[in-house]
């Protein structure tokens, strides 16, 4: 996946790190800390450079990639009245919030683990501006509005869009942005808003952001910029060019997404070490239909087809246990590891309705992956899991084509017969997803 979200804290840290290169003339104090508990916050306050935590009124909120924290009542900025939150209050609030699962208005739920704490910036609603940039079709688009804060979505018609084609030169970019500064930005801020917007766009562009939004920001006296809230996604394919500029940046899992299971983590780690592609997502550990599909496109059509046939034959999407792929010419060893991981997962639970398990070893006609070689890995995994697979009444359907497929299909059929596994094997003469029909229509 190319676009990855980063924490608000890390986004602000990137601004601070490159501030002088882009925003000279403006000031940014970067008073922010990222903590995982109240205790850590109190400790931070004792460090040199973080005295402000004890001296200034604070704002605290979770920093876990989800938005609408205000509407979810997850921003601490007042006890009695805005700006009266002390260090101790913030620490206590953090410990309370992280002590129980939280469900957002969107339905996502999970534990809060990361919090950003910053000084409270007194300002009025009309001082809040909005700016963001992203890619639409093939162009960058810069969005600017005098109406920032929580109201920006209700006032989206007041947002000005500037389209910036990829090959536009810097002079034209600057002209275009300046010419389009929203008319309702007050006169006293117009000039510096324009300068800030131009710098913002270049910062977004040069640091390979896929999405960058400050909502709101406030322009204080002395050209001080207060970044009150920020959302950012980076194009992680640019990581190899951005090592110095990004530093060692973290790409956290989205809130509410279950942390990876140990098996998914193991496959992800194996994937990172090989030139081939190994992917595994467990959709339902109790599911009946398990897939081991070669190829990204094929894995999608198998999932599509399983959903179609499961629903048409009295089952449901819950029957589909996993999604994933192995492709790009994995070694025999890598394939064995991948297969054993799936065999292990699928033989942990009996089907609640007492039905037999189904294993789909599918794939399109490979371009260059040696089918016999990868099937050798699956056969080795069969040897180790044959008894368990039989215990679950596993019915195996194989369909594959490509280099050396005849040998691969013959080998896997022989091995399964020898081990007493129930298997049906098909080649390119059978439609790629037809084994799904056979598997699911058969047993109603």
């Amino acid at each position, binding site marked *: 996946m190319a676009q990855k979200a980063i924490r608000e804290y890390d986004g602000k840290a990137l601004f601070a790190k490159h501030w002088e290169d882009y925003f000279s003339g403006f000031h940014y104090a970067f008073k922010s800390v990222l903590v995982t508990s109240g205790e850590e916050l109190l400790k931070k306050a004792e460090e040199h450079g973080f005295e402000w935590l004890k001296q200034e009124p604070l704002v605290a909120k979770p920093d876990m990639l989800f938005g609408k924290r205000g509407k979810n009542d997850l921003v601490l900025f007042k006890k009695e009245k805005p700006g009266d939150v002390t260090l101790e209050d913030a620490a206590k609030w953090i410990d309370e919030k992280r002590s129980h699962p939280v469900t957002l208005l969107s339905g996502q739920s999970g534990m809060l683990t990361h919090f950003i704490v910053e000084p409270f910036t007194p300002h009025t609603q009309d001082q809040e501006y909005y700016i963001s940039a992203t890619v639409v079709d093939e162009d960058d688009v810069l969005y600017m509005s005098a109406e920032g804060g929580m109201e920006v979505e209700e006032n989206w018609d007041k947002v000005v869009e500037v389209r910036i084609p990829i090959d536009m030169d810097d002079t034209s970019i600057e002209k275009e942005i300046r010419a389009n500064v929203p008319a309702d930005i007050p006169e006293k801020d117009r000039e510096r808003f324009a300068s800030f917007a131009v710098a913002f766009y270049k910062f977004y562009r040069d640091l390979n952001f896929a999405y960058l939004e400050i909502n709101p920001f406030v322009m204080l006296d002395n050209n001080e910029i207060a970044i009150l809230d920020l959302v950012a996604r980076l194009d992680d394919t*640019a990581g190899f060019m951005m090592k110095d500029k990004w530093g060692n940046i973290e790409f956290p899992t989205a809130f509410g997404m279950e942390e990876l299971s140990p098996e998914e983590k193991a496959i992800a780690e194996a994937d990172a070490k090989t030139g081939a592609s190994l992917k595994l997502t467990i959709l339902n550990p109790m599911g009946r239909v398990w897939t081991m599909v070669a190829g990204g496109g094929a894995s999608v059509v198998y999932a599509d087809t399983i959903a179609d046939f499961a629903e048409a034959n009295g089952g449901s999407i819950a029957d589909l246990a996993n999604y994933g792929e192995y492709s790009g010419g994995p070694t025999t060893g890598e394939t064995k590891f991948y297969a054993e991981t799936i065999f292990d997962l699928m033989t942990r639970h009996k089907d609640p309705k007492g039905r037999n398990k189904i294993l789909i070893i599918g794939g399109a*006609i490979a371009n260059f992956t040696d089918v016999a070689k990868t099937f050798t890995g699956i056969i080795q995994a069969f040897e180790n899991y044959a008894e368990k697979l039989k215990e679950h009444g596993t019915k195996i359907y194989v369909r594959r084509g490509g280099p050396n497929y005849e040998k691969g299909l013959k080998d896997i059929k022989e091995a399964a017969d020898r081990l007493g596994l129930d298997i049906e094997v098909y080649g390119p003469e059978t439609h790629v997803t037809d084994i799904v*029909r056979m598997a699911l229509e058969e047993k109603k």
Partner: protein
Amino acid sequence: MERLFTRDTQAIFWNNNKTAIQRMLDYDYVIKRETPSVAAIVAPTSSNKFEKFFWGADEIMVPVYKNTADAKAANPQADVLLNFASFRTAYDVTMEALEIGGFRVMMITAEGIPERLARKMNATARKLGVTVIGPATVGAIAPGAFKIANIGGTIENIINSKLHRAGSCGLVTRSGGLFNELSNIIAINADGIAEGVAIGGDRFVGSTFIDNMLRMEKNPDVKYMVLLGEVGGTEEYKVIEAVKDGRLTKPIVAWCIGTIAKHFSSGVQFGHAGASANAERETAAAKNAAMKEAGIYVPDSFNDLPKTINEVYTVLKAEGVIKDIPEPEINKIPKHRRPKHFVCTISDDRGEEATYAGFPISSVATPDTGKTIGDVISLLWFKKVYPKWATDFIETVIKTVADHGPAVSGAHNAKVTARAGKSVVESLVTGLLTIGPRFGGAIDGAAQYFKYADDNNMTPAEFLNYMKKQGIPIPGIGHRIKSLKNPDKRVEGLKKYAKEFFPSTSLLDYALTVEQLTTSKKENLILNVDGTIGILMVDMWRALGYSEEEINEFIESGTLNSFFIVGRSIGFIGHILDEKRLAMPMYRHPMDDILYNVEKAEEIK
């Protein structure tokens, strides 16, 4: 551009991906192409000049270049670039090739090129009218004409999927793996494809579905199209628009994969980087419905796709739009083939008469052919037919260096060996083994250093200074007794010939300015015969159109010394035969001609 590729299309393959290139050449052989579809390979870190590949049972050589510019300059007809660079360098390779120009189609295989770079690359290509296939693709194919790298898989699969000859379908997919699958489906349920493109899985690809389909609309071989889309993105809507406004009139069968995504709210990435639905409009279900609504043939599920294709095909066949396709004769790739251990590119003795670089020996040997030893050397050493002024010069050089009396070390060695009772060949090689940096080697050295000075625009004074710093006397300068006043007649002859017959003598002119300076220091520091030959050889090659790099290679490989070796062998053999004729006895050097200075060895304890 009606057709993406023809049977004459040739590509430059960036990266020495031997398996993929062999697959292309196997395909070429099977479909009986006349020329290989890969004209050249670019491999920046390779020191090879060529790479051998099978062509049927035989082998052919594909030239290897260090950079795209050289490859393109040598193969201007190759207008397809197959960019197999990694995601780190693929952008630079594409941009450089766009700059060089002359490419009509570029295919980029790398997955995960930074999005900003991919956008820039695609926009630049579009502006220049270059069709980009990819990034993140397995490529494209025009069955019976040209196939990119691994697309279609093995030769067996290609034949099974009827990818060896043009059918009637224009196929576009995102996925490379499913491209093969669709080709197979179309072969089974219809008559194969006329042109197919896997556009690539990244979010930003160069040519999209609509770009390729608009071309296929104009391609008379394409009678209908099959589109396999994916969840995410809005590219399919551009196709719908084109159907609605009449830019696409041929029947289209289409399906978007990824209907599964509706069952999972978020977080699971189904398929490629480009496949993430950000809005309802981008879901597979919405796109399938919209396509159906626009009159595109959309099955109920992917599993029913073969049936729909077959229905559309059957109707077109019944209407006579699609005719029967004659199955062409194809070549078979032999099961067992062996790489050859030796390569010969200069002569061939397999035919009726042996040839020198393609010329039967009789056509260059007898006097009536007007050919000389110079001509034979130009054929066997340089694989070119040199003009007469050049072959005459070579002949002059051979004659000039043939002998220089019995006292020089090589001749002396040959004579001593002959007197020891050894054969002609043994005596000859003894003499030849003397040739090197101190004997005869000045030809190489002169060419090398004078050319270096000239290439770097050194003034004669700078050149002298440079050689002084190197600690080497200038090769080709100086004679035992000759001077400007008492010139070497051999040198005069060579210079006169060159001035009269060479198109230009730039290096000789430079060398003469150097000579002016050296002789002003010492009278006998003249340009000698070795120097003159070396320098004029460079001038000859320059005038014959060789590049400076090629000439440098001649110098480095010792080509210049070869003229000396051939010429002087004539003299050596003369001296050897002379010894035999005179029946000279074993030679023993007089003891009074040796300074004996032998001390008793010290014992080390």
